[in-house]
């Protein structure tokens, strides 16, 4: 028997109001008048009437809500929309309802399902077509179902029970086939009996031949020389670009050791050597996060990840997973670091872009509209970050049409971990032979199967829907509490890692490398529902799981802690020293591969790049486009662009105060302007702070990826300096998001960018401590006219900086503070308008791309750090996207104070008004200084290019004198323009 409990509000319901507002905005022509919301819980179990009543009581707030058993209470309505999840999709509300019911009944509901859904009753004379259109807006068909009910509906119950009739045996895969079939296995996957394919393995012909040869040589009693499906799927996952970073690892042209080893790791090695005793790196490039010293007691870790392809399909679920997933990179550092800050970044198309695109030629699989992608990814970090109790001090939105096919969703997590507990170093770990393999946290379902191989491919109609996982932050928070609050410091486990890409196959494979082998009993792995094939269990990317190595003697104590925290812990096997990973299933060995082959059997590919042809027209083109513009108008329009304007609506919906560590907020000054750096004070009682900043300049990739990467690093460093950091205690992280990486031209661009990483990082002495890449951010599909189209994301490098400062009271904000303060531009302003924000504005990217002068900039940054430490600066902002004009506007709006400046004589070669205001020359800061500090301030800047350009004034306007003209803009107008783009969000 299936039951349903419906809960409705008896007071004004903001959920209904907010959905109504959204629908009214989206359907301004409709006669929609009102909406009411009913939450429903479907219970697929035998319950007595009295049990149902008790359950309903528990699910209803007596003061504000009403419940109804079996029947859906219907207000006056024209149509009702019902939205619920598809079978197997993570349903957090359903899970909590289940726990509530079990708790009040005092008994388990066993394998019976409890599912949540909601009804939205719409009032007003709307048509069925409109109701259908509204239903489409309210759900994502990849994860949810929506039913439209008319007034005559009987509101029949839908039970999203998972019913798998799949083939659950282990199959051998015949690799003794011709090259064409072998290639097909690689591209489309293993063939099922009915001829369908299981989804891409992303294995090349060369790799498949190596695999064929390996298994042919194995002498396995009773077995042919072919791998089983679980073996082949597991190898595909282990060798995927996503896991092995093959493009960064394999030789590229003359770089035999690969660009990662030479340019990224190589930079860090050189810097660490140079720093000698001042080296602050502790654990870099070898664990789930990178770690630097915080003080003598603690380390700070950082890791930034992307979750792009799934976020394109299900923006909400993808972005929740992005953030809770990277939280596990923190929990999985050493023996577990406590997550203390999240950062985010969304690279998306203009949300107002309404171009329709389809994944298939029949146009049955539309891409979600740009607006819904942005809304969804914002909501995802909200749910993931807020529910986990981790503050979000920093983030950004970057807009470019090239992100229309696949958004880039960056999620990063900073962690804190004591160096030692007793004599044991907490930042080191090693699984030992004999330790139990323990799976902790959630259970295994079909979620995210082929995730690792999928993200190594571009988004197209073959992209599997099961590639989408939805995070469950509370299950993970419970897991985190059990580990960080108790088990870690009692030293109850010897190693831990995250179940991320490839699920158990990845984590157990990796940890088997520590001990020397692993033996797994597959049927011990707890499942969400029956019917999964062994290869699916092994590769599933169901979230909120971590794998631990627990010594046998510690198991009982470990299990007790998990039970108290209501966290599921299961022994699924043992670490060994057999030098093999072996899996048993129903008494048979279904998987047996040597560690050597699993980890290092992948054939190395020699990659070749070639220099792309570029149509670099005369830089004067741009200036011609901009001849005699109305600079006042341009300033305001620039402020209203999404790459520059306020995203305060995002900053304010992400908790940045939790944990009580906030020092400078995401929004600075009276005018609440988004900053590009944030400072936290992670240890109660210590004055030390951690500065976090970001740098990204993907637009420059259209002209020169070396310049792009150089500027991204320079920007991250500059933003950190402006917030109070100094170069001598600053580390950086790299996140490459490339596209079309199979093309030699793109590889050339990649090599150039990697080379820039080396050059700039070593010049600044800022080591890379961790990084990640995502190489195929491409969309291949169809336009509304049925034409095939390819959208390749701009080659994008996100640089995240993390530094330690001795005293948080020296942290700096961007807002002008007091009338009379002097305003300085530090650094040189050159005519570098190529691919600048203003050039995007005129749809012309030509011009000189900003070039980073590391020698000059290093001097500039050191002087700024010194001046901040001496207390000589009242405000500082890195001059970034939009140039000096925008930096001036931001400090003015943030301080809600006017400024009067003359920028007609700046150091550098910028001469035209547009170059002076909007050139994006690197290495510049705009600072304000109290008059009493002027002398000492200027002394610090001896030998550095700077200009005193004016002062902060009482008059509420920004007045800028240019060579032949003047810009005069009221503060209120500036503020309004700055807040305009996302005003309705």
């Amino acid at each position, binding site marked *: 028997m299936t039951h349903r409990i419906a809960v409705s509000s008896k007071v004004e319901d903001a959920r209904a109001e907010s959905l109504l507002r959204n629908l009214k905005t989206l359907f301004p022509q409709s006669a929609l008048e009102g909406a009411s919301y009913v939450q429903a819980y479907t219970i697929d179990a035998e319950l007595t009437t009295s049990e149902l009543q008790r359950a309903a009581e528990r699910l209803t707030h007596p003061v504000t809500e009403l419940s109804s058993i079996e029947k859906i209470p219907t207000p006056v309505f024209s149509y009702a929309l019902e939205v619920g999840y598809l079978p197997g999709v993570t349903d957090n509300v359903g899970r909590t309802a289940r726990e509530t019911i079990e708790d009040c009944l005092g008994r388990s509901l066993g394998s019976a399902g409890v599912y949540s859904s909601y009804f939205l009753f719409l009032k007003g004379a709307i048509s069925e077509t409109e109701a259908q259109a509204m239903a489409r807006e309210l759900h994502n068909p990849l994860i949810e179902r929506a039913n439209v009910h008319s007034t005559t509906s009987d509101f029949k119950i839908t039970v999203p029970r998972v019913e798998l009739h799949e083939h659950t045996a282990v199959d051998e895969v015949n690799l003794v086939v011709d090259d064409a079939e072998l290639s097909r296995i690689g591209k489309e996957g293993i063939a099922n009996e009915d001829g369908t394919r299981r989804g891409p393995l992303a294995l090349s012909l060369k790799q498949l031949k190596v695999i064929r040869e390996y298994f042919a040589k194995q002498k396995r009693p009773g077995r042919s020389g072919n791998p089983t499906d679980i073996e082949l799927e597991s190898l595909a996952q282990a060798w995927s670009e996503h896991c092995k970073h093959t493009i960064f690892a394999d030789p590229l042209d003359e770089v035999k050791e690969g660009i990662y080893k030479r340019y990224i790791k190589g930079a860090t090695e050189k810097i660490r050597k140079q720093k000698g005793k001042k080296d602050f790196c502790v654990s870099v490039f070898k664990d789930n996060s990178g770690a630097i010293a915080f003080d003598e007691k603690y380390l700070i870790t950082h890791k930034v990840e992307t979750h792009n392809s799934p976020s394109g399909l299900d923006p909400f679920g993808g972005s929740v997973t992005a953030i809770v997933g990277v939280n596990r990179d923190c929990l999985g550092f050493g023996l577990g670091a406590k997550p203390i800050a999240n950062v985010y970044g969304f690279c998306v198309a203009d949300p107002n872009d309404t171009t329709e695109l389809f994944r298939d030629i029949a146009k049955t699989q539309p891409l979600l509209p740009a607006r819904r992608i942005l809304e969804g990814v914002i909501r995802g970090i909200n749910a993931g970050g807020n529910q986990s109790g981790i503050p979000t001090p920093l983030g950004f939105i970057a807009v470019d049409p090239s992100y229309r096919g696949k958004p880039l969703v960056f999620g990063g997590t900073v962690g804190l971990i004591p160096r030692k507990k007793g004599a044991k170093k907490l930042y080191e770990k090693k699984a030992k032979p004999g330790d139990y393999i323990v799976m902790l946290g959630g259970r295994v379902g079909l979620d995210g199967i082929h995730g690792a191989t999928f993200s190594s491919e571009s988004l197209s109609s073959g992209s599997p829907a099961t590639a989408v996982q939805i995070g469950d932050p509370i299950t993970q928070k419970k897991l985190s509490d059990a580990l960080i609050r108790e088990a870690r410091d009692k030293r109850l486990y010897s190693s831990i890692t995250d179940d991320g890409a490839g699920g158990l196959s990845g984590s157990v494979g990796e940890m088997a490398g520590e001990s020397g082998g692993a033996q797994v009993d597959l049927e011990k792995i707890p499942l969400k529902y029956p019917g999964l094939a062994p290869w699916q269990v092994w590769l599933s990317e169901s979230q909120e799981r971590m794998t631990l190595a627990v010594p046998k003697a510690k198991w009982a104590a470990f299990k007790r802690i998990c039970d108290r925290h209501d966290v599921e812990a299961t022994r699924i096997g043992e670490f060994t020293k057999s030098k093999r990973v072996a899996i048993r299933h129903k008494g048979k060995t279904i998987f047996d591969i040597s560690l050597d082959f699993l980890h290092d059997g992948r054939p190395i590919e020699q990659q070749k790049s070639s220099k792309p042809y570029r149509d670099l027209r005369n830089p004067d083109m741009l200036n011609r486009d901009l001849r005699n513009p109305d600079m006042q108008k341009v300033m305001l329009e620039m402020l209203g662009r999404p790459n520059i304007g306020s995203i305060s609506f995002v900053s304010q919906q992400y*908790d940045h105060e939790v944990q009580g560590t906030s020092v400078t907020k995401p929004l600075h000054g009276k005018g609440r302007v988004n900053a590009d750096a944030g400072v936290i004070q992670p240890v109660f009682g210590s004055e030390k702070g951690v500065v976090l900043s970001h740098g990204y300049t993907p637009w420059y990739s259209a002209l020169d990826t070396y310049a792009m990467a150089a500027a991204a690093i320079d920007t991250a460093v500059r933003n950190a300096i402006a917030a109070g950091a100094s170069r001598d205690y600053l580390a950086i992280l790299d996140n490459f998001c490339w596209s079309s990486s199979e093309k030699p031209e793109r590889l050339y661009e990649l090599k150039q960018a990697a080379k820039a990483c080396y050059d700039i990082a070593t010049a600044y002495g800022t080591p890379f401590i961790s990084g990640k890449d995502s190489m195929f951010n491409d969309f291949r599909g169809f336009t509304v006219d049925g034409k095939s189209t390819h959208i390749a994301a701009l080659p994008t490098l996100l640089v995240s900086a993390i530094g330690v400062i001795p005293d948080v009271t020296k942290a700096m*904000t961007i807002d002008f503070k007091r009338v009379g303060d002097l305003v300085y531009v530090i650094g040189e302003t050159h005519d570098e308008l190529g691919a600048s924000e203003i050039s995007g504005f005129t749809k012309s990217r030509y011009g000189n791309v900003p070039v980073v002068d590391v020698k000059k900039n290093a001097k500039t940054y050191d002087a700024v750090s010194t001046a901040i430490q001496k207390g000589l600066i009242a405000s500082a902002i890195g001059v970034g996207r939009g140039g000096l004009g925008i930096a001036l506007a931001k400090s003015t709006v943030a301080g809600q104070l006017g400024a009067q400046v003359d920028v007609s004589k700046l150091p550098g070669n910028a001469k035209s008004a547009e170059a002076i205001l909007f050139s994006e020359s690197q290495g510049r800061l705009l600072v304000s200084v109290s008059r009493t500090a002027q002398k000492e301030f200027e002394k610090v800047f001896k030998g550095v290019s700077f200009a005193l350009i004016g002062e902060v004034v009482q008059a509420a306007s920004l007045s800028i004198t240019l060579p032949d003209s003047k810009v005069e803009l009221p503060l209120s107008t500036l503020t309004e323009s700055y807040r305009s783009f996302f005003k309705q969000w």
Partner: protein
Amino acid sequence: MKKPYVIIFSGYGLNTEDETKAVFESVGATADIVHINDLIAKPSLLKKAQIVVMPGGFSYGDDTGSGKAYGNRLKQHLGEAIEEFLKRDTLMIGICNGFQIITNAGLVPGALLTNDSGRYSCRWVDLEVTGESPWLKGIKTLSVPVAHGEGNYYAPPETIAQLKKDGAIALKYTEGETAKHFKTPANPNGALENIAGVTSHNGRVLGLMPHPERAVRFTQLPHWTWHKEEYVRNGKAIPTEGPGLQLFRNAVNYFTSV
């Protein structure tokens, strides 16, 4: 004088236990973070406590309604133990999700609805003290952050009338120093009569949406870099404390001062 002992509840997604413990310890209490399941297994643990904190967080992800699932669990398994605890001369505070939990458990009246904006909001607010409570002794106004999606206080008219009669409306959102500085509306969530916090048990139990534990240092203020210039330019030392600290001091003093 013996230090008062504080029990801070944890588990199922509560998440502000660490900072709350640190603040209590900084003002002279001893504090333990205790999982609700440990208290259910051994309710007598509460007998040692003078102060019980239901801290902020996101218990059960706000699924089925904020504070509902945890509140139910508390009421069902620890209702009597909490009643016993409150029979003694003790203090209890529910902060944010903790407030939502203790309303659901029936320890303070009212309910917390979804913010009128329909969205989670994290920012600073100003509060005026409008009721009597040991927690609020000597405080007239204070500025602290809120961070919640369901902080819109509601109670039926008869409850509001009773609360007023009892002087149990303890805190109201008001247009104070930070609201004026940032030009933000006083009421962040549409709360009825601007109610930010209420009390029961003669003020000994305080439930409030804002987070005093996140406002205990000067450098936690949202505009401290602006204020700092005033101090520096006048040759004065920068303050170290934030406005929320007094609440915790008051709680400790309740047991330690004669």
